């Protein structure tokens, strides 16, 4: 009976985890972030036309906002969106599926490395962890990349055990696929590959004849990605956020002192800065309490993991250090290199860029939990699972309150809340009505494209008319998107001079168009105010009569 219960336990945990990732997926998170709209709309465009929003046929990267998103999420989402239609739910669905798949993967990985008990605990930790629920419920290509990397890792440890070529091929090709999903993997996977090769060199050498063909196949898979490396489309994003590219002196460096002063070495202070950023990804404060500094990338009152998991992580690390093996060393390597891409950017504790880090930490927490269970005296061993269950249930209840009640109200602005409501309203206007969005960064267009679900060829035409040349799609990273599309304009509004443009509808945020700017002007009619869930005014839609 007990054995049957244990066999069903992972299934039950995965079911709960799946529910947490899929429940009201289209509604929560509240709002729809511009990156989500970009990936979702481009998938829609690919499905219908084979081209992205710029009209580029099957691009290697997606240029939206000059972010140059890696393509895999878009291409895998395209048939899903084609099947169920374009919506917040369909755009987010692939990430949710990736998250649910990860629950299975972590079970199998932990079982391969340690055994069933750790596998169950690790699955539980992942199922309820705030970071994984959060990133499974938004359009996050990094979550897909993480799942692919995890599968790659699983097949790698299977290959080490079995020597089967198919495991090798699956592992390497999935690692390669992860590099097509998110930028961080482009740094982590090659380093991980080198470490894995060094670590298992004798085994690889023994089987080298069998491994040539699959290696070549994977190499061919990566050729398109390599071809991008030295083009703006391949490096712009990395260079744009790198700590080295920002024209700032590192903290501690004194400009007034001589450059030759050994105690004022820029190299030393820069290295110190990067080291500080690297260590911040292992800081208990960030992992178990504070979380991501960006309000869009975190849940109110929650961090990456729950505070009670900290001592188990410490125990897990101690166990791995005490009794290490090849697989555990590889897992530790994964953990140590995972934050490198994030540490090289100037932003402190960016959870999305360091997403790869949290699977090894999850496994270590699971290991810690199972170690406490194993080492406990008989009486406590009976109680311990109940204690963990109690902590888990309590944590999930509090998390659910924060995620489904507090965060939608307090952080809707950070999730670009309001555009759906804007589109619903402006669609009531005649097609020739001039509508101007106050948008200096020209990013709101993507929400309009997404929520209107227009034929992509219409926007392709607007792109052509704006003078954009596909020749420079990968080469030129300068901002280049249409400011006009159908009857819409997306640009900075000069209100003092434009407030007299008769017949024009302006859509502006409440901060840029306070009530005082129009309330006493009989020529300006307030058509609608869009509210955030907390009652604050998000946008005002006014018409100049």
């Amino acid at each position, binding site marked *: 009976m007990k054995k049957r219960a244990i066999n069903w336990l992972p299934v039950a945990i995965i079911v709960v985890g799946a529910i947490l990732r899929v429940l009201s997926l289209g509604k929560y998170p509240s709002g729809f972030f511009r990156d989500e709209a970009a990936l979702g709309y481009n998938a829609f465009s690919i499905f219908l036309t084979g081209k992205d929003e710029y009209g580029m046929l099957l691009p290697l990267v997606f240029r939206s906002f000059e972010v140059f998103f890696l393509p895999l999420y878009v291409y895998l989402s395209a048939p899903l969106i084609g099947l169920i239609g374009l919506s917040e739910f369909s755009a987010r669905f692939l990430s949710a599926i990736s998250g649910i798949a990860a629950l299975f993967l972590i079970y199998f990985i932990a079982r391969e490395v340690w055994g069933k008990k750790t596998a169950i605990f690790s699955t539980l930790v992942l199922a309820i962890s705030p970071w994984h629920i959060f990133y499974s419920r938004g359009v996050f290509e990094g979550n897909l990349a993480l799942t692919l990397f995890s599968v790659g890792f699983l097949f790698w440890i299977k290959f080490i055990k079995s020597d089967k070529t198919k495991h090798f091929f699956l592992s390497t090709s999935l690692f390669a696929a992860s590099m097509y999903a998110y930028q961080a993997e482009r740094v982590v996977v090659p380093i991980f590959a080198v470490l894995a090769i060094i670590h298992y060199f004798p085994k690889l050498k023994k089987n080298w004849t069998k491994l040539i063909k699959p290696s070549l196949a994977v190499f061919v898979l990566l050729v398109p990605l390599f071809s991008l490396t030295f083009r703006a489309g391949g490096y712009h994003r990395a260079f744009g956020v790198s700590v080295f590219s920002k024209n700032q002196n590192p*903290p*501690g460096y*004194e400009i007034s002192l001589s450059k030759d002063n050994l*105690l004022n070495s820029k190299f*030393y202070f820069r290295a*110190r800065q990067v*080291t*500080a*950023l690297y*260590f*911040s990804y*292992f*800081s*208990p*404060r*960030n992992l*178990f*309490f*504070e979380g991501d*500094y960006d309000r869009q990338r975190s849940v109110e*009152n929650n961090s990456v993991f729950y*505070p009670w998991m*900290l001592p188990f992580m410490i125990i897990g690390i101690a166990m791995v*250090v005490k009794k290490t093996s090849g697989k555990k060393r590889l897992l530790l390597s994964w953990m140590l290199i995972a934050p490198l891409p994030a540490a090289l950017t100037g932003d*402190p*504790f960016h959870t999305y860029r360091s997403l790869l880090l949290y699977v090894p930490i999850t496994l270590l927490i699971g290991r810690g939990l199972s170690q406490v269970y194993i080492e406990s005296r008989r009486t406590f061993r009976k109680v311990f699972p109940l204690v963990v269950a109690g902590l888990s249930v309590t944590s999930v*209840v*509090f998390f659910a*309150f924060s995620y489904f*009640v*507090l965060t939608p*109200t*307090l952080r809707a602005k950070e999730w670009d809340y309001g555009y759906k409501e804007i589109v619903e309203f402006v669609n009531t206007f005649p097609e020739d009505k001039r509508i101007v969005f106050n948008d200096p960064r020209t990013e709101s267009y993507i929400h309009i494209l997404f929520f209107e679900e227009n034929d992509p060829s219409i926007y392709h035409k607007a792109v052509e008319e704006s003078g954009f040349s596909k020749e420079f799609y990968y080469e030129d990273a300068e901002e280049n998107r249409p400011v006009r599309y159908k009857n819409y304009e997306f640009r900075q509004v000069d209100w003092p001079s434009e407030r007299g443009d008769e017949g024009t509808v302006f859509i502006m945020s409440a901060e840029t168009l306070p009530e005082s700017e129009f309330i006493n002007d009989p020529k300006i009619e307030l058509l609608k105010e869009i509210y955030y869930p*907390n009652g604050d005014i998000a946008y005002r839609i006014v018409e100049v009569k």
Partner: protein
Amino acid sequence: MKKETKSILTVFVFSAIIRLIKLGAIPEGLSIEEVDLALKYFSTFGDTILNPFLVRLPFALFGIFTLFLFFLVLSLVFKPKKINVSIVSTLLLSISPWHLQQSRIYSPGMLIFGVLMLMIYFFLKKGISINLASKVLLGIGFFLFIVGVLSPTDEARFATDVQRGIARGSVNTPLLKIVSNKFVETYRQRIGVVFEGLDFGNYFFEGHPRERWGIEESPKLILSLLPLIFLGLYSVGRQLKKFLLGWSIFCLGCIFLFLWRGPSLTLFLVFPLITLSAFGVEKFWASKKRWQKKAFLLLAVFAIFETFVFGKRYIDGSTKSLFSPRRAIFKDMVAFIEENAMPGERVVVSDRLGESKQYFKFYLKDVYIEDYEFSDIEVSRKNAKEGLFVGVLPDDSSAAEPLYREDGSWPSEIGVLNTFYDENLRQKVVIYRQK
């Protein structure tokens, strides 16, 4: 004299020197706490006490005393053959930026640290075993934690009200009372302060990366100690591990209950960190492997380099943060005013300088300062013509300010005697008479 005795005496003498040298001048400027403390004892010691060196001297002496206590405690905790670890620990503590900086300023945390060391010393001297001491510390720590949770704060009550306001209507009341209540919010607030103490950046870098360079008295420890701490954690014995754990839980319990933050009030956390790093040093030193000896040498060189970098920055005043409580402006400014004010002349000082009255009393060595008036209205707005004026113009001032001129010059109606820049509050100070 035994070699160990010579070594520890050398450490104490060296520590005393680096704590006492230029004590009044480094760090530059006194904090309001230091000034208030001196003025409080004016009636006892007269104006002799109104001296930066003498104000800080008790803390420096107490800091040296805590090193002595630290050594004694470690000598009792470790076996006699581990005397070298005690000496190395004491040396590492004495040169740690954390303890050094706290020894040279007004630091209530230094007093707390010293009292705790004294208590532990007497317990161990009385024959109480380390095991028992560990359990007592652990027990007190958990007790403090429970008391903390059951002591709601005003901020927690406010946060609960806000959350319940948001959730009303969407979550049923019994459930809402469970997920949002003052005890939960109190726990959240207090645990946040504890987690500030569980951050690498807080100890080895200039604060949390999110806070960048804004943390006073940073860094606390040199980065070279980090691998030594990990090594020490690996090599230290079980009994001592329990003792250090008990100590840490006790400290975190105090932080949890009393919401102690900042480098002064959390100083007691230095004990386990330094002790572990000393064990790390011992492990390296005892190693027979050549590569480990080379690695240790490299680490030692780097540690010396880091210490010199810190030392230079500390002496130069570069470790000072944007939010430093130490006001360097007053010393020279008050000296200038004293020199240039005519006998019996009224001096009108803008209180935009912030708590300036106390600083003037201190530097003028006069607790009455009858000829001085401290105005909360910018002095340039007053209609008075006679007197010496100390006006203030913030960096981000608007054209509405009487002293403001677009070209950055001073108004022609005033005869400027001197100007100073107040770095703490980012404002220009001008000393003038009306023309």
